[in-house]
């Protein structure tokens, strides 16, 4: 019995500590929900704390009665059992009082929910598409878009039995190659959808998560008040690398955002130019290796050996060493009924040419084939 009591005290202390510490301190120790950086996320946090308090108080009361009884109404203390087996008054009371508490909780919950579902006009729209296993951000009013995948350092460390220490990377598994940048104090519409399976886009500091469902768009909005870098993860199981498609959201001042957007537009134009270029073998292999690492290595592995039964090997594999048109077709159009996506829609001609060149010449495949962007254009 002593143990139950001790544990109860411990739990209560823990709960009290959780409740009395200021939010930011707690976030550091990872004990409680974040307050976040939007008006909505703060309201969600307050609602969370209110209900946590309510249930904690109820729990303490109920358990106190139970433990009082356990200590005093025991046979070893000579307690004689009473024989009552109902009490209409008590039964009515403990039906009505919980109903009243529930109603009291439902009111603020309803208010916050209605506020979250409001759809005033927004100043900008970003469409977020979940892919297995990366995110795609389309700045619909700006005319540029990009993929955002797990950063290379995390990706190296997280390989099975890599022997590398995750401790050495501060934002291990919470860092990406291309963060999504947004201006502060701007009402932003975030549309979520998916290309293959259901994903869920979640940045805790925004106060919500929303599923990304193939074929449908979900509508959300946010209004970030503090500049900063906010991290999140995919929250709906989406296959093998579900745990490895983080989200990094950078909120910057409106001026900084405008500069960044200009740069992105220029980069998009430059990438379009590349499609007309002719690459040497060295250029192609170098570019191809980069593309391979971010796009293909998750399944086919960095060493090209794949995973038997799940993802075929490219090293010495029938596709990568077989005829070129077949290889082009499967990369561009994907393979129905498998996890092999159609990369024709995800990569540009130059990237596709480079990665196919890489796959046909790396790991001792040495076919000597050099694919140019023009070949991709013809094969599409």
């Amino acid at each position, binding site marked *: 019995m002593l143990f139950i009591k001790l544990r109860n005290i411990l739990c209560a202390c823990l709960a009290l500590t959780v409740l009395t510490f200021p939010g930011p301190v707690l976030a550091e120790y990872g004990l409680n929900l974040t307050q976040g950086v939007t008006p909505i996320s703060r309201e969600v946090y307050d609602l969370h704390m209110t209900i946590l308090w309510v249930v904690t108080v109820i729990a303490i009361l109920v358990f106190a009665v139970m433990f009082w009884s356990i200590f005093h109404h025991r046979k070893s203390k000579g307690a004689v059992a009473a024989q009552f087996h109902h009490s209409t008054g008590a039964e009515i009371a403990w039906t009505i009082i919980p109903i009243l508490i529930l109603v009291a909780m439902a009111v603020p919950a309803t208010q916050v929910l209605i506020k979250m*579902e409001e759809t005033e006009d927004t100043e900008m729209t970003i469409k977020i598409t979940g892919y297995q296993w990366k995110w795609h951000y389309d700045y619909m009013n700006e005319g540029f878009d990009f993929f955002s995948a797990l950063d290379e350092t995390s990706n190296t460390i997280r390989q099975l039995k890599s022997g590398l220490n995750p401790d050495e990377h501060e934002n291990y598994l919470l860092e990406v190659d291309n963060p999504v940048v947004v201006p502060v104090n701007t009402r932003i519409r975030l549309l979520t959808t998916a290309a293959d399976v259901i994903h869920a886009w979640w940045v805790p500091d925004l106060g919500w998560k929303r599923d990304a469902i*193939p074929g449908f768009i979900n509508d959300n909005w946010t209004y970030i008040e503090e500049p900063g870098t906010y991290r999140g993860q995919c929250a709906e199981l989406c296959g093998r690398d579900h745990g490895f498609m983080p989200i990094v959201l950078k909120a910057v001042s409106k001026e900084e955002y405008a500069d960044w957007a200009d740069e992105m537009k220029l980069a998009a134009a430059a990438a379009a130019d590349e499609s007309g270029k002719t690459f040497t073998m060295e250029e192609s292999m170098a570019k191809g290796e980069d593309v391979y690492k971010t796009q293909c290595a998750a399944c086919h592995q960095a060493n090209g050996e794949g995973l038997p039964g799940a993802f075929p090997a490219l090293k010495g594999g029938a596709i990568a060493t077989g005829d070129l048109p077949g290889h082009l077709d499967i990369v561009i159009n994907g393979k129905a009924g498998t996890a092999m996506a159609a990369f024709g829609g995800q990569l540009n001609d130059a990237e596709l040419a480079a990665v196919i060149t890489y796959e046909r010449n790396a790991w001792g495949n040495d076919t000597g084939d050099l694919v140019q962007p023009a070949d991709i254009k013809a*094969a599409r």
Partner: protein
Amino acid sequence: MRPVNKTTGKLALLAVAMFGFGYLLVPIYNVFCDITGLNGKTGEINIADVDPMAVDRHRTVTVEFDTNLRELPWEFVVEERKVSVHPGEIGEAVFRVRNTSDRDVIGRAIPSVAPTQASVYFDKTECFCFEEQSLRAGEEKEMVVRFVVNTELPLRFASLVLSYTFFEVPDNKTVNRNEAGFQIKNKS
């Protein structure tokens, strides 16, 4: 009949009925979507029924257009990504698809409106969605969507998004609609 068998029979019947109910949930869900606008089920309206006098000129609603391709060697763009309309007025969006591959491809577009609750107030007069679009290699096609935002759209909705996603229909499958309104791909 023995009472035990009677009970057993009734319960077995209940189990079978609940199996049927599982399937019944499909049309129920469809009806539910029609009412709530989930699932991109927008309203329909005849051009002739649009009353030009009913246009609410005090209010403007922005409609954004979004295009998606899933595993399809096409280009799919919209001429203008954002338009402003008054509720009750006929709006128009021109979508363009181009088959960039050297083979014939059949695609089908699935519509989706955000926020979902507004989709029942979004009436389309013409739409290319749900129907098969067949494009020969290199062929280009223009598709027009005409729509009316219902004047009864609640005030809290100031902007809508109309999204289309094109999926490829494999050429060995043709399309029929079953009674529940769902399309069944028949293998030929």
